[in-house]
């Protein structure tokens, strides 16, 4: 990777002001979201941010970064890293998306979610897509996350993917591509909410200058979607969030969601099934549960059906779901849709189910089950990225150019043994965003995970999403479980949301002067001031000597 120092005279005045911050900012092969290497200045969406940063010195920026970290420790926004509770690293430089760019990304994400919904309804039902030859039967059946137990469970409002996170990257040409879909238990939305809060408190002047679309609406949307998914005929459904417990790495998120939705956060042992229904144990006796927003993996959900050594779920849950007395969100068996081999078929699925052209493209991917593809991949293994199909969070991923010869040799054997278990992709140069590191601001690779909530009527895509950033130089794996950090993601401008119509005559009205109720104060206070003034006054006239 070749770096060269940007020539200074291109942007003389900018550089002079921010000599500390953007000094020697290198340009790499990747698309930099803020700095345009040709023009030398910042890209349009970033101009406001760039200008504001220019007014800060390196010391000031670092002070703000420390404030951010401290507020995260105090709030307990932490992530479990190798068994240790650490503050979730939040970078001070946000990622900015222009409004019109978002108008392209958001529908693309929503489209994908709709296609995956249709696909799940199909594979756990009539399997038309297989019959019509859109996707091979073997691909679906061989997916480790295609669960027979999920067949025949029909969600009340037809929604299986209540919450999804579609991972996007921006390649070296600046175009958006889908890296993977997460329709099981995507995590990270709590960091979107808390990043925003912390950033607004740390950079009030930026929020004042830019019009950034708010994200605080998410818990309400989620609760509405979960409520809409309740079994039919239930009045005022009880929604709960099911967490594996306080030791889970995303426990902070579980508690935040439960707290902001005002629902109970339960563990498996708080639930029990009786009489074909799910209940929770409360001090007021048992209480019926209608919708479970579960953050427990399929495997651990019900020891009767899945792993029988699981203490995280509750026995009988699947039976109740099958009876239609409880809704499990996201639905069991969704993993087949985010299988990375199925991923390669998603553009076809979009055309098949929705009769639309895909808005967001996939990253080119080799299916290793095709003999030619396998040979080519084995040949060029040192320049490709190889991923296990059912992994998430960057687990098992091998980056060819960074792997040793021995690693590649073992990998070759594994690929030959189990071609269904792996996919290969070219190394995508993820776009970079300036990030505060030891040496100042430096480009670091980022991806973007927008979150979508499906309430059965429409798919809501939260403006922005979680931008993850790989903190080591040149690192392309951004997962927080791999030591990555995050950035607040700002979507600018856009239409003003509809609000209640205001009548000119009615509003705005200030309190009329005579009707404002005065704020009382202790009359003695006023007198004290007078006394003090008198004493001081006397002191002055007496020539400064106390009397």
């Amino acid at each position, binding site marked *: 990777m070749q770096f060269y120092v940007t020539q200074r005279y291109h942007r003389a005045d900018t550089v002079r002001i921010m000599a500390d911050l953007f000094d020697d900012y290198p340009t790499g092969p990747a698309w930099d979201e803020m700095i345009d290497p040709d023009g030398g200045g910042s890209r349009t969406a970033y101009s406001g941010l760039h200008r504001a940063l220019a007014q800060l010195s390196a010391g000031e920026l670092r*002070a*703000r970064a420390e*404030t951010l970290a401290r507020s995260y420790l105090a709030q307990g926004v932490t992530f479990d890293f190798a068994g240790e509770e650490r503050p979730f690293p939040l970078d001070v430089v946000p990622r900015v998306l222009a409004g019109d760019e978002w108008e392209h990304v958001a529908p693309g994400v929503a489209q994908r979610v709709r296609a995956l919904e249709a696909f799940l309804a199909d594979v756990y039902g009539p399997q038309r897509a297989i019959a019509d030859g859109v996707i091979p039967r073997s691909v679906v059946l061989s997916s480790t996350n295609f669960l027979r137990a999920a067949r025949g469970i029909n969600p009340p409002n037809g929604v299986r993917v209540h919450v999804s996170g579609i991972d996007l990257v921006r390649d070296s040409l600046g175009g958006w591509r889908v890296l993977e879909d997460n329709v099981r238990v995507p995590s990270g939305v709590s960091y979107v909410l808390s990043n*925003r*809060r912390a950033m*607004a*408190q*740390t950079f*009030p002047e930026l*929020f*004042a200058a*830019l*019009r*950034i*679309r*708010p994200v*605080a609406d998410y*818990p*309400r949307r989620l*609760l509405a979607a979960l*409520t809409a998914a309740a079994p039919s005929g239930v009045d*005022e459904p*009880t*929604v709960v969030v099911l967490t594996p417990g306080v030791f889970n790495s995303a426990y902070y998120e579980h508690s935040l969601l439960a*707290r*902001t*939705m*005002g*629902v109970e956060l339960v563990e498996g042992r708080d639930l029990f099934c009786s009489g074909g229904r799910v209940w929770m144990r409360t001090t007021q006796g048992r209480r019926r549960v209608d919708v479970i927003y579960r953050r427990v993996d399929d495997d651990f959900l019900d020891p009767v059906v899945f792993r029988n050594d699981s203490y995280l779920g509750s026995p009988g849950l699947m039976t109740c779901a099958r009876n239609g007395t409880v809704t499990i969100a996201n639905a069991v068996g969704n993993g087949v849709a985010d299988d990375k081999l199925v991923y390669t078929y998603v553009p076809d699925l979009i055309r098949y189910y929705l009769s639309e052209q895909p808005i967001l493209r996939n990253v080119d991917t080799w299916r290793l089950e095709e003999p030619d593809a396998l040979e080519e991949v084995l040949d060029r293994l040192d320049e490709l990225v190889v991923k296990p199909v059912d992994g998430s969070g960057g687990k098992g991923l091998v980056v060819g150019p960074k792997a040793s010869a021995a690693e590649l040799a073992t990998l070759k054997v594994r690929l030959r043994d189990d071609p269904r278990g792996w996919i290969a992709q070219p190394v995508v140069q993820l776009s970079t965003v300036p990030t505060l590191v030891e040496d100042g601001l430096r480009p670091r690779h980022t991806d973007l995970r927008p979150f979508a909530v499906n309430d059965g009527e429409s798919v809501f895509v939260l403006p922005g999403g979680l931008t993850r950033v790989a903190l080591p130089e040149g690192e392309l794996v951004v997962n927080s479980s791999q030591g990555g950090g995050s950035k607040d993601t700002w979507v600018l*401008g856009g239409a*003003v*949301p509809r*609000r*209640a119509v*205001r009548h000119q005559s*009615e*509003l*705005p*009205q*200030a*309190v009329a*002067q005579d*009707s*404002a*109720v*005065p*704020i*009382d*104060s*202790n*009359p*003695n*206070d006023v*007198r*004290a001031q007078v006394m003090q003034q008198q004493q001081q006054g006397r002191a002055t006239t007496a020539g400064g000597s106390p009397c």
Partner: protein
Amino acid sequence: MLSRIAESLFWIGRYVERADDTARLLDVHVQILLEDPWAEEDLACRSLLSVMDREPPPAHVEVGREYVLDMLAYDRFAPSSIAGSLVSARENARRAREIISTELWECLNATWNQLPSHMRPARPHDYFTWVRERAAIVAGIMDSATSRDDTWNFMVLGRSIERADMTARLLTTRALAGSAGPSWTTLLRSCGAHEAFLRMYRGAASDERAAGFLLTDRLFPRSIVFALNQAEACLANLEGTSDRAAVDDARRHIGYVRTNLEYRPLIEVLDALPKEMERVQRACSAASDAIRGRYFPSASSTNWVGEAL
């Protein structure tokens, strides 16, 4: 107890609560102005100022956050600003030094000493947090180290009346600015009531419920009815039963406005919210006057006017 001391105690309760409530109110409003790109800053700031009984600048001047913070957070001389309240609370404590506990005095005095170093931080939020923490310490000391005698009754009486008054002002910001004003969620958050409210209604939040929660909830300590109830209880403790037929003036004002909220359909109250809230504020003010008249009678002070001679 000396009337003058009792009055100071009453005002310590009021000023500390006022600082606390104003900090909450400003914290949430400032945060909202930052996070909501469509907020009409000028209008929101103006309605905030007028509700807090400060005269907004003339119409052609754009009112921004900084101005509001200067007026309502950092002004050391106005009793309606946070800094002013804290200064006054400390002054009152100094006058009642022999009655209040050393702990309480030191807490208020330390607050006063630290005030300059906490004012105008990079993040206003830090200042508000600090003010809330100091107020919580005062409340904690009052709760744990004050006998439940008249000392306690006067302080809690002041605190409850101020709380009802401030909550009423807060609700007025909503009613006056309409769609430009803070949402009910914002109001709940500024009272620290949002999470309690969500738990109570399991997230099935509606405007009406939120309003009802802040107006008439009998269990949440920052609702108007709760605060008024507490004020009445304090007055009852102070009064004893000397007169079995008549009700003391202060109790009449408070009880009247409380029953007005409590025993009327919520929808009627909401329809005329600004009017009702003004009524609450006036009742608090009248009760405060009545309490002064009854418990803190002062010799009419003679004002010598030098210039007239």
